[in-house]
Every structure is written in structure tokens, then in C-alpha cells.
């Protein structure tokens, strides 16, 4: 269901403080992606609606589960967890495995939400004063701050993909 303004779960405040600001933007993007995927059946969610791109909304949900896991669990906490939807024989399995099947859709939604919950749990206990602290990434290091800003960028860009994918499924635009 498309929400009316008074039912929109997103907040558009002017939060004070750096971490609160990052979290508000991130939360609103997660909600935006969720809204873009609402009210569609498995075939619509799996449809590659903007050819020649192979992106679909279902593929995007799977991809974002991997994004959340990669940054929050692996990079920021250094946990060695299997990356969701990563297969040795297909680096794009998140997109390529997004087939029109209700069970695949449910699994993808649950996986994405579970990663968000884990990420938020970590953020809840994170001390804003530590935003400048660094963690290893590749052959160097990266600050927590840089990871959070990058995540907002990445979500915004994927929301742009979702805009066009949704418009080309059923004409829905906005939000």
C-alpha cells in the first residue's frame, strides 16, 4: 500500500548530533526501499523491468541484505560471517537468483530485516565519540564515520534504482 503523508513511517526531522543524523537518513532509506517493494507479487518483484539492466526489486532486497551484513558485521565488527547470497561460482547471485517464487521473496525480506536488526543492535550500543575510530578495510583502514556516510550514499543510489524499477512495473513514482 502506498502511504498517505500522515501515515508515512519515515521521519523528516532535523536531528541534532552527528550519529543521530546518520541514523535518521539510513532508517528513512530502509523504509523507502520497503515502500517501493510493497503491494507487488513475486513476479513483479522479480521482474527485470528496466532492460538491459538485470536489476529487479527482489534482487535489490537480496543485495541490500548483503550490503548490511558486509558493512555492519564484517567490516565494522570484524565478524567472519558468510555473506548472504554470495556464491563462489556467481558473484552476482544476489541479483541472478532473484526468481519469481513466493518463498524466495519471503526469505529475502526476512534476511534483509534480520540484517537491519543486527545492524541497529550494534548502532544502539555504539558511542558517538568513537565515530572517528578506524577499522581494517582492504589493505588500509576506514573510519566508522566513512562507512556510515557511504552506506547512506549507497542506499540513496539503490533507492534511485528502485524508483525506476517500480515505475516500470506499475507506474508508481514518488516516495
Amino acid at each position: 500500500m502506498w502511504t498517505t503523508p500522515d501515515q508515512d513511517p519515515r521521519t523528516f526531522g532535523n536531528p541534532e548530533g552527528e550519529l543521530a543524523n546518520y541514523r535518521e537518513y539510513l532508517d528513512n532509506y530502509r523504509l523507502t526501499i520497503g515502500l517501493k517493494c510493497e503491494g507487488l507479487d513475486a513476479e513483479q518483484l522479480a521482474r527485470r523491468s528496466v532492460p538491459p539492466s538485470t536489476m529487479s526489486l527482489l534482487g535489490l532486497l537480496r543485495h541490500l541484505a548483503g550490503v548490511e551484513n558486509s558493512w555492519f558485521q564484517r567490516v565494522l565488527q570484524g565478524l567472519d560471517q558468510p555473506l548472504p547470497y554470495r556464491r563462489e561460482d556467481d558473484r552476482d547471485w544476489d541479483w541472478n537468483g532473484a526468481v519469481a517464487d513466493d518463498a524466495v521473496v519471503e526469505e529475502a525480506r526476512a534476511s534483509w530485516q534480520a540484517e537491519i536488526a543486527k545492524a541497529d543492535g550494534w548502532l544502539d550500543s555504539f558511542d558517538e565519540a568513537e565515530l572517528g575510530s578506524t577499522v581494517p578495510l582492504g589493505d588500509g583502514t576506514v573510519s566508522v564515520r566513512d562507512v556510515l556516510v557511504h552506506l547512506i550514499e549507497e542506499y540513496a543510489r539503490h533507492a534511485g534504482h528502485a524508483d525506476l524499477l517500480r515505475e516500470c512495473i506499475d507506474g508508481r513514482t514518488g516516495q
Partner: protein
Amino acid sequence: MTSDDTPWEPPRAGDELAHLLGALDRLRATFRWKADALDAAGLRTTTAASRLTLGGLVKHLALVEDFKSTVSLSGAPLGEPWDPHAWDDDEDWEFNSAADDAPAALYALYDGAVQRSRARFASALRDGGLDALAHSSSAEGEHASVRRLLFDLVEEYGRHTGHADLIREAVDGRTGEDPPAGWRPTSWHL
């Protein structure tokens, strides 16, 4: 690879301001690359059922750069080269009118708007930093911070670059997350 090859990469570990401006500049470069070096037909191409074009996005983001750095930031008028009455009959005027603009004019408009916007925000940040209140306010009179305006720009760029990703792939197959090392915008004036 040196930083000279990828000047758009933000710092690995800087303060809040360095990261925010770094993220914004990387998105500007990425968007510019996604829209770059096309002829009029390329800039007018639509994909699937959407009416969005790369030319429309170039003109829209030029407007956003100028608007945020004048009306929103300080309350100054939008200024040259915009005509404030251009939207009187069409609220999407910048998107729609781009189809009539020459590629060189579109790229020059965008590059000029980015330069102006960078200078205006730099000046405001020297005066008051990220916490300073901008002119823009909500219906209740609550003013946005300069931080908030810059984040709005990051968001807006991120999202429109997502649009550009899909349109550009349909135009000529160009895909990718960031510009290749050594890339510089093509000038249609040369």
C-alpha cells in the same frame, strides 16, 4: 593508483565535514561520469516506461545545486542563469526543457552550478560550520542546519545517480559504481 587518478575519492579518515564534502564530491564526479560525453540523442534517451532522461537529470541537478546554495542556504535569489518564471506553466520545466538544449550548454550549465554551489557552501562553512542554521525552514519555522542541506544534497545525488545508472546502461551499456581511474569530464567546448 594515486589520488591524482581518483581525485573524487573521499578521505579514509577525516572529520565530519571532510567526509560529508568528500562524499558529495565523489557523487558529483560519479553522476557527471554517468552523464558524460553523450550527444543530443543520448541525452534525450528514455528507458522502459519512464520519461526520465540523462539531459533532464543534468539540468535538474544543476538547478538543485544553485537552489540549495542560494534560496535554501542564505535566502538569496536563485540568480543567473535561471529565470524564476520558467516553472510557471510546468513544474517539471527543467526536466522537460532539457530536450531542447544543446549538449554543450547542458554540461556547461551543470559544471558552472557545481562551481557556484561549492563556493557558496565553502563560504557559509567558514562563517558558521555545519551546525549553523540555514535560511530554509519548515512550516513551523524550524530552520535546517547547513549539515542538513549538505546531507540533502548527498541523498539527492545518490538517488539520481541510481536513475542515471539504469538510463545510461540503456543508452550505450556504460555501467559501474565509480568513474575509472584517470577519468576527467569531457568538455564539449574543446
